């Protein structure tokens, strides 16, 4: 989130697209409804389903799954056509705008209607609501990302906010809600295959930086790999690791994957879950670390699996990062019960057994405080270094002194600081940054410009135009020594830059001059290393509109995409819709969490949501002779099928089937309840919706496309 949940209380309008906070982020709703009531802020909800959020909306916009980019470009087109763009913001803080205008021209409200199903009049209306109720807070979640063009879709969201001038402002921003309290933290630590912690990447410089932080020899780390070249290659992703085992598609690694540890990961959140199950059976070793037996525990047919019972969040302590970039301390409530151990203990036993504890624990004597200290001292890119365990705990003890609207402490021991020191918090004196890219405040007091990350000048391929990438003259934070844009800081300490200077002198020097360590640049509309330099609409891989595939085809196939080939063009078959006529999309329900191992093992939550189901529009159901509560088969083009209850509701339209994805324990019509460890069966089992989510992955991130596949349904 560029802003915070609390800051949404200042919004004058909202647009939610692919986000359903009453189910996924209920607590955020108090701030959203506050703004709706106090500011009379319109709430625009764009979703294929009339969700619980839509029940609170002023405008509900039903969109065909996977066409978000077209709608956003349509809004941008309409804003520009009426002269509603923020001209001064664009002139001073945005680059590549002319190139964006050129692309947006094609997305007239009528064209958008054809692609998205949203009436042209409604696109015009929404554009006007946004233009006349600024600032707007824009929120998306996995409904925006889990598409084969997810990376383009989320860029169009950002572009709309840039065009409207809503960035860096209280009440505005791109406010992507993250999940429970450490999803943002694990993202910041880059629990990903293409980057070391804090988004440093996998370059040699990145490894050397972290080796200095960890106080280990770079050569020792190199010696842990087969050879150095593998240190710099992105690994398999969570979405497709099983290809590294099954090898149904060509992999680019010297060996298939042989062993796997799933630590706090419910595997039935993986699309094409039946293929994940095949991979479990092929692995030499599978280790599951979780407080409850996950689907992996039941789905695996072979005797290659170990379950390590871990403690829950209430039985351990440590720092966690919230969706608003705030770091908090989680205190232990009780000691781990039964024979479970907390994650630190399990890791320590593993590391000791593997024989590198002396290297692993060089800086870590006091667990977990020293872990927070070590990761903070290295995570300079995102300013995790100012939030020491002592400061975090001080905030927790004095939370009542912070203002609910601004998050700033008024008086008391944390006077002037922002709750949880939202990153970046550059030094131990810095108050945290409550709103990113806000130039109204001095950097020392939580202000920031846009980051200079992509050079100082660029000539665009599409137009041949050359543009300075730094912010215009006169645009900077108060007290900045440079009046206008400036590049990122380096060579303050010779041989280092602001990201690698562990002495943190560079950070302090920049702030002393009233400047941001990462420079003051423009937000770019053109991303020259992406296949679509300006994002455009491309039809979902499995599209119900063969006519649109011709006009908006997907990408060329991608070789060696995180070590495995990914099909795009060769997978997009215009005839598929004849056999699989309905769009399938997935989402959350408030009672269950993620893959559901924990919540389906709670008797009260199980009582509230005891059945896996599929939402079917009553008209479609009547056409197919399906009655409410009847069992139906849903089949995917990849051969996955599930037998679930039909839940007739007008939440979905008559072309779309919706599935919650939290269920597990039944696989393709067969109950696996007997395969859970005795006495540890969840109260509720059900088919995993992800057995029928389709093939399809984003071209940049490889996130799975679970929101816009195709399926067929029949009476069971």
């Amino acid at each position, binding site marked *: 989130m560029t802003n915070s949940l609390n800051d949404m209380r200042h919004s004058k309008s909202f647009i939610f697209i692919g986000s359903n906070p*009453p*189910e996924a982020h*209920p*607590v955020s*709703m*108090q701030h959203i*409804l506050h703004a709706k*009531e*106090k500011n*009379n802020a319109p709430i625009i909800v764009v979703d294929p389903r*009339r969700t*619980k*959020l*839509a*029940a*609170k909306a002023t405008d*509900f916009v039903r969109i065909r799954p996977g066409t978000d980019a077209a709608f956003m470009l349509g809004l941008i087109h309409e804003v520009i056509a009426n002269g509603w763009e923020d001209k001064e913001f664009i002139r001073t803080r945005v680059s590549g705008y002319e190139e964006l205008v050129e692309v947006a021209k094609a997305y007239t409200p009528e064209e958008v209607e054809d692609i998205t199903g949203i009436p042209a009049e409604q696109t015009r209306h929404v554009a006007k609501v946004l233009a006349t109720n600024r600032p707007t807070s824009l929120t998306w979640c996995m409904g925006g990302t889990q598409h084969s063009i997810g990376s383009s879709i989320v860029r169009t969201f950002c572009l709309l906010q840039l065009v409207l001038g809503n960035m860096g402002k209280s009440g505005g921003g791109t406010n992507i809600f993250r999940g429970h309290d450490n999803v943002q933290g694990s993202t910041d630590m880059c629990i990903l295959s293409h980057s070391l912690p804090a988004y440093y990447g996998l370059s040699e410089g990145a490894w050397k930086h972290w080796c200095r932080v960890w106080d280990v020899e770079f050569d020792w780390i190199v010696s842990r790999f087969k050879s150095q070249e593998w240190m710099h290659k992105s690994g398999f992703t969570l979405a497709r690791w099983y290809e590294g085992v099954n090898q149904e598609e060509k992999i680019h690694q010297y060996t298939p994957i042989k062993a796997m540890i799933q630590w706090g990961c419910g595997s039935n959140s993986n699309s094409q879950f039946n293929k994940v199950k095949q991979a479990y059976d092929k692995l030499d070793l599978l280790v599951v670390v979780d407080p409850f037996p996950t689907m992996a525990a039941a789905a695996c047919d072979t005797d290659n699996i170990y379950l390590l019972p871990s403690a829950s969040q209430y039985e351990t302590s440590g720092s966690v990062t919230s969706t608003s970039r705030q770091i908090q301390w989680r205190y232990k409530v009780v000691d781990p019960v039964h024979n479970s151990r907390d994650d630190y203990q399990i890791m320590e036993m593993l590391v000791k057994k593997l024989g590198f504890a002396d290297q692993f624990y060089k800086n870590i004597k006091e667990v977990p405080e020293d872990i927070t200290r070590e990761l903070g001292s290295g995570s300079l890119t995102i300013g995790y270094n100012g939030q020491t365990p002592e400061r975090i705990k001080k905030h927790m003890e004095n939370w009542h002194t912070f203002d609910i609207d601004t998050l700033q402490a008024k008086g008391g021991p944390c006077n002037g600081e922002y709750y949880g020191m939202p990153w970046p918090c550059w030094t131990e004196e810095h108050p945290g940054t409550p709103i990113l890219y806000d130039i109204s405040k001095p950097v020392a007091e939580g202000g920031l410009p846009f980051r200079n990350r992509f050079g100082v000048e660029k000539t665009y391929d599409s137009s041949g135009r050359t543009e300075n990438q730094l912010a215009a003259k006169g645009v900077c934070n108060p007290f900045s020594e440079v009046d206008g844009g400036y590049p990122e800081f380096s060579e303050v300490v010779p041989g280092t830059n602001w990201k690698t200077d562990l002495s943190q002198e560079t950070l302090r020097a920049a702030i002393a001059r009233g400047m941001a360590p990462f420079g003051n640049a423009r937000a770019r509309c053109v991303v020259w290393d992406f296949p679509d330099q300006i994002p455009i609409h491309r039809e979902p891989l499995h599209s119900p509109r063969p006519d649109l595939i011709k006009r908006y085809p997907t990408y060329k196939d991608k070789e060696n995409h995180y070590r495995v080939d990914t099909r795009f063009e060769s997978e997009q078959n215009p005839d598929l819709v004849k056999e699989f006529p309905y769009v399938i999309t997935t989402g959350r329900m*408030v*009672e269950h969490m993620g893959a559901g191992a924990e919540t389906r093992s709670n*008797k*009260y*939550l199980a*009582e*509230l949501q005891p059945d896996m189901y599929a939402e079917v529009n009553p008209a479609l159901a009547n056409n197919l002779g399906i009655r409410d509560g009847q069992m139906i088969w849903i089949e995917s083009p990849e051969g996955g099928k599930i037998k679930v209850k039909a839940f007739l*509701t*007008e*939440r*979905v339209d008559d072309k779309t089937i919706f599935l919650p994805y939290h269920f597990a324990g039944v696989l393709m019509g067969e109950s696996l309840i007997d395969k859970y460890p005795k006495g540890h069966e969840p109260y509720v089992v059900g088919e995993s919706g992800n057995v029928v989510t389709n093939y399809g992955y984003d071209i940049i991130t490889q996130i799975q496309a679970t929101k816009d596949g195709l399926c067929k349904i029949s009476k069971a």
Partner: protein
Amino acid sequence: MARVKFLCDVERCIDCSGCVIACKEGNHVPVGVNRRRVITLDQGKPEEKSISVSCMHCADAPCIAVCPVDAIYQRDDGIVLVSKKTCIGCGYCFMACPFGAPQFPSGSVFGARGAMDKCTFCAGGPEETFSQEEKHLYGQNRIAEGKVPLCAGMCATKALLAGDADVVADVYRERVFTRGSGVNAWGWSKAYPRKG
């Protein structure tokens, strides 16, 4: 003396069932017994509304009037409670209640007989305050601790208000003013239909 009331602000209720779970977990209510429920009307339609419902602790409670053994009684602060030791499980109170609040243990298809259970406003029961027996039969006694009921304490959007009726009314009245008019209160247009 304050008189306690619940009020569910329908503009705020997001159908998250946090109140239901808080009640069940905090009071160890058996599965199948629902002291509180969230009811959704017109689900999936433009007029969808949700409301959290439990015993309303009526001023003139019909359950008290019909109980043949006088198991149900009202405290001075308006909280309606049942003595499970006196209750014969006849179900008259269930028939009389306009909200379906009285609950009975679930069992066979014909239903199980047993003492009635319902929302206590988190005020325990007739047994000695904070005793093991009170906790076992009725759950927590948060009112005696000076706390609001768990359901309202847990509500993410502050839709569910509980406590002194005057204070609850003030909070709600302020909200309604903030919203610009009284006419968006749920049920207003039904109660006061526009003339002409």
